[in-house]
């Protein structure tokens, strides 16, 4: 190996860096605009320029609103997103784990067909269930409530969480289960002593996946939750940006606030995030 200039290697790095810079343009826009003052964002000639300094006025406005302009802050909506996402994620992970256990280790006649019919549920356009869904939620007293939306995310999360756990548990050798049966373990004993302890990486993948998806979801939330004070941050952000306001620094700060929780999870747990991503595409 020589260390002299290699044009092919140079081209590889050049392209990788070029694409990285292009991918980061929106990040630059978010950061530079959000650190500007309202006076600065109104100067269109410098809209791509750096802010004059790190000004946090916009984050304060995004967080608590600008009452004199009738703009609501996003802090309550951020709290709603957590109140929604955390229980929905935990419940759907537990449900998926049990389903995956049954569908991988307790297969019965027709279980593969049932699994396939379950999977179809994760691909449908949710528009095709929205109206019956809102009617049903109202009739069981959950219309327009966070708990209603939690229930919705748990139900429509069943296919993907079941899929990830089923594929994960399929790798557990049957010999381990047989050995534990000889020790007298039954359906729940095997789950508690063999499958569940082995499931930690599976749970991490599923929890990250569901957390990200439920946090980022928009259609169910905007349809089910009408009251602004109950809406999660995605809906509140869209309402803010759709309201023709001029405070772009505030909107960008709001977008950062909305993106940060899932970005932190992604940066810390990227490896598991990718696994969830790939599990969603490779069936069976």
């Amino acid at each position, binding site marked *: 190996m020589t260390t002299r200039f290699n044009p092919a290697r140079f081209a590889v790095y050049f392209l*990788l860096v070029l694409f990285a810079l292009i991918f980061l343009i929106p990040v630059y*826009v978010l950061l530079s605009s959000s650190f500007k003052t309202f006076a600065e964002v109104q100067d*269109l000639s410098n809209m791509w320029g750096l802010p004059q300094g790190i000004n946090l006025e916009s984050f304060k406005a995004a967080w608590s609103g600008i009452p004199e302009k009738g703009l609501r802050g996003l802090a309550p909506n951020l709290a709603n997103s957590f109140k929604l996402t955390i229980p929905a994620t935990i419940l759907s992970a537990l449900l998926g784990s049990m389903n995956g256990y049954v569908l991988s280790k307790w297969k019965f006649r027709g279980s593969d067909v049932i699994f396939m019919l379950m999977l179809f549920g994760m691909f449908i356009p949710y528009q095709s269930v929205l109206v019956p869904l809102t009617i049903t939620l109202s009739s069981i007293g959950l219309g327009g409530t966070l708990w209603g939306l939690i229930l919705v995310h748990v139900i429509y999360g069943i296919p993907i969480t079941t899929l990830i756990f089923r594929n994960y548990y399929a790798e557990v050798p049957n010999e381990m289960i047989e050995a534990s049966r000889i020790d007298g373990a*039954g*359906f729940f004993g095997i789950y508690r002593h063999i499958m569940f302890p082995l499931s930690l990486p599976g749970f991490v993948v599923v929890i990250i996946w569901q957390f990200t998806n439920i946090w980022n979801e*928009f259609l169910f939330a905007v349809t089910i939750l009408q009251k602004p004070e109950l809406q999660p941050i995605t809906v509140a*952000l*869209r309402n803010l940006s759709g309201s023709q306001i001029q405070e772009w620094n505030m909107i960008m700060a709001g977008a950062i606030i909305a993106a940060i929780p899932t970005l932190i999870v992604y940066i810390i747990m990227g490896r598991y995030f990718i696994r969830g991503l790939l599990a969603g595409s490779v069936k069976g």
Partner: protein
Amino acid sequence: MDSQTRHERWIAFLMLLPSIILLAIFVYGFIAWTGLVSVSKWDGIAPDYNFVGLKNYQQLFLKAIGGVSALRFHIGLWNTFFFTIFFLFICLLIGLSLAILLDQKVKGEGIFRTIYLFPMAISFVVTGVVWQWIFAPGTESRPRGVNALFSTLGLENLKWGWYTDPTSIGPFHIALIPVIIAAAWQMIGYTMAMYLAGLRAIPDDLREAGNVDGATNFGVYRHIILPLLKPITFSALIVLGHISLKIFDLIYTMTGKGPAFATDVPGIFMFETTFQGNHYAQGAAISMIMLIMVAFVIIPYLIFSFRQEVEL
């Protein structure tokens, strides 16, 4: 497993049963219900399940009956078509290119991968907000976004209306271009991750065998590696394709239906006609058509995947 008792098999089935029932109701039951609404007279806040046959569908497809509704729906279908074609092409091409570049044993691979993939972790709503800012055209005297950049660089004649331009070339609305760019930005990393996983699954012996045979690096990719990636391209087409057929959040946030429906898609039409216009039957018909389009792509894929698993 043979040692499972009948009793335990029942317990196993009972543990699965709640999920089966929930999905039977919330997926299949609700789809049937929506199907019923789509052939009903329900046009207003109060439900009206009187049967009208395929009238709501005719109003979407036949301009003579549907008027503006049919016009809007036709544009939405064309937009979905072009959006899907370009979105898939860009994601696959750049996703594969990035994966191949990252496969060249580069330093800092993790950092590059993290940068390309991070858009997948954020909401389409956030993406829509940022790209709305980037492509907002502003006015002739006060250009914004990319147009402002063009002005600064003296490239005045490159300025145009972006997503506010109602021009169409044949049935292709050029206002879709910024939307396609935003969607591709979000999903290229995902395509790259799929291809990269595929590349990493190819044993080194195969590449070395190619090298020994005197094939160039390019030849190895062309004749050995790319053919092995075909199943990944297939999966990526299905996953990205079904996302683009039902796209809603991103466009709704970034541009809405656009001028003269230039960026409209059935998802937006359904949402607005149902929840803002109270035309429930029409909304149901649109969502049934969306479902059929997605099912057309997904059902063969599911069946194919399961056949493969049985063979293994």
